[in-house]
């Protein structure tokens, strides 16, 4: 394994808010190939935000590149990986019956396979950590949850298809010389806390979009991890005791800077 200190990085799903955060954090020190199923130019021009306060990607100019790539099309994915040092897969489809499988699972297969075939040595894969799926094995009532526990997606389309995509990526990582760092998320919000939000409480497993961007720098630069496929919870620790985020700090050197005291502490 080797750290990717600089060089070229392809981002799949760069048009979403996590992609926007990744672009903002990586653009100074990496040359980025920003790809999405929708043209980044169109996303920016039409201000297609995921939610009202979600960030939009910056439209980068040369030496960076913007490209339309459908992750369900292997040839497009492989071409996007050509010449890259690292890849970041942020693609996701949630409620759509067909695309959930083709993007979250087949897309993950295409990205992992293309990385192996083109010599990309580090892949950052992403997915959700769900705890409120409505079945008895969903960890909802548990505490002290750590990064490496097996996911129990139940019958939830989004959770299951991303889980299967993660398993496919793990198999590629363990069979080939592919170094995969996987980030699991639950909730996102902007860094800025509005006055009316103060003291209103916090959802556990919450991270600011701004902090997610910085985590990609750490994920590219970590020199070594114990396993070929290493999973990390990416969020800020909160006093509820539900999740531990110590592994990201220990192995990646990343910890959230936005820690939400203003949300979970009563205003004095």
């Amino acid at each position: 394994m080797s750290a990717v200190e600089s060089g070229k990085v392809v981002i799949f799903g760069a048009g979403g808010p996590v992609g926007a955060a990744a672009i903002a954090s990586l653009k100074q020190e990496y040359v980025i190939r920003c790809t999405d199923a929708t043209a980044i130019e169109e996303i920016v021009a039409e201000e297609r935000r995921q939610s009202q306060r979600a960030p939009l990607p910056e439209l980068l100019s040369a030496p960076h590149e913007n490209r339309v790539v459908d992750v369900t099309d292997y040839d497009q994915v492989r071409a996007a990986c050509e010449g890259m040092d690292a890849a970041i897969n942020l693609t996701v489809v949630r409620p759509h019956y067909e695309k959930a499988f083709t993007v979250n699972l087949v897309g993950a297969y295409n990205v992992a396979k293309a990385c192996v075939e083109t010599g990309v040595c580090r892949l950052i894969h992403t997915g959700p950590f769900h705890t409120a799926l409505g079945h008895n094995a969903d960890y909802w009532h548990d505490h002290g949850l750590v990064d490496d526990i097996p996911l129990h997606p139940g019958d939830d389309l989004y959770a299951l298809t991303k889980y299967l995509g993660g398993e496919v990526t793990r198999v590629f990582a363990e069979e080939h010389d592919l170094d995969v760092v996987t980030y699991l998320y639950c909730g996102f919000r902007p860094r800025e806390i509005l006055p009316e939000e103060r003291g209103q409480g916090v959802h556990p497993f919450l991270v600011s979009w701004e902090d997610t961007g910085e985590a990609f720098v750490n994920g590219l630069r970590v020199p070594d991890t114990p396993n070929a496929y290493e999973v990390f919870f990416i969020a800020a620790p909160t006093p509820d005791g539900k999740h531990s985020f110590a592994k990201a700090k220990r192995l990646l050197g990343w910890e959230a800077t936005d820690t939400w005291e203003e949300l979970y502490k009563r205003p004095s």
Partner: protein
Amino acid sequence: MSNRVVVTGADRALGAMLCRELARDYEIVACGVADDTAIGCRAVDLRSQDSVEQLVAGAHAVVHTQPYDPPKATEQELLHLITRGTYVLINAAAEAQVQRIVLISQLAVMERYPDHFVVDPSWRPLPAATAVSLAPYLAELTCREIARTGKIQVICQRLGALGAEDGTSEQDAATEVRRALAREMTRLEHQWRVSHVVSSGCFSGVGT
């Protein structure tokens, strides 16, 4: 209770054999990727929710052999067919109050362990990073995770190559599927079970 059993993959060797064997005791609804009137098999795309809802209506159980012997397809199409097909099938079956799925998977997912290891069904599968190898493994995960919710029972049987020297004989395959269909299971025990069905070779007689 209904005596009807749906068999997927009925246009392939294993599925067709199971249809013949099980027809002695059950009313069989056979489906595959293509119509085959000679064996009473009708074409059903398991990814189609409407088609699958009709397929499983009134059934007691489903014997899902497609992940064991899938049709020829591109890598991407194969993964989509097996995972989404299994997802649609198991959810439609649960919705229709089908009691049980018997999932037929491939023993090949365990064959990457060294021969001198005593491998039983509790060991972690080791599929290769190919669509052909991953497809049955992903079908298992789909069924296991949905069974974990308690909405349906799944008995997974991993079979070796049908009729091969170190594989699974037709007779053993039919006997074990019949046994899986008849097995008593309560809602208080694990709703996912996995076993190896092998007639000879290194997996034979180990925790099956």
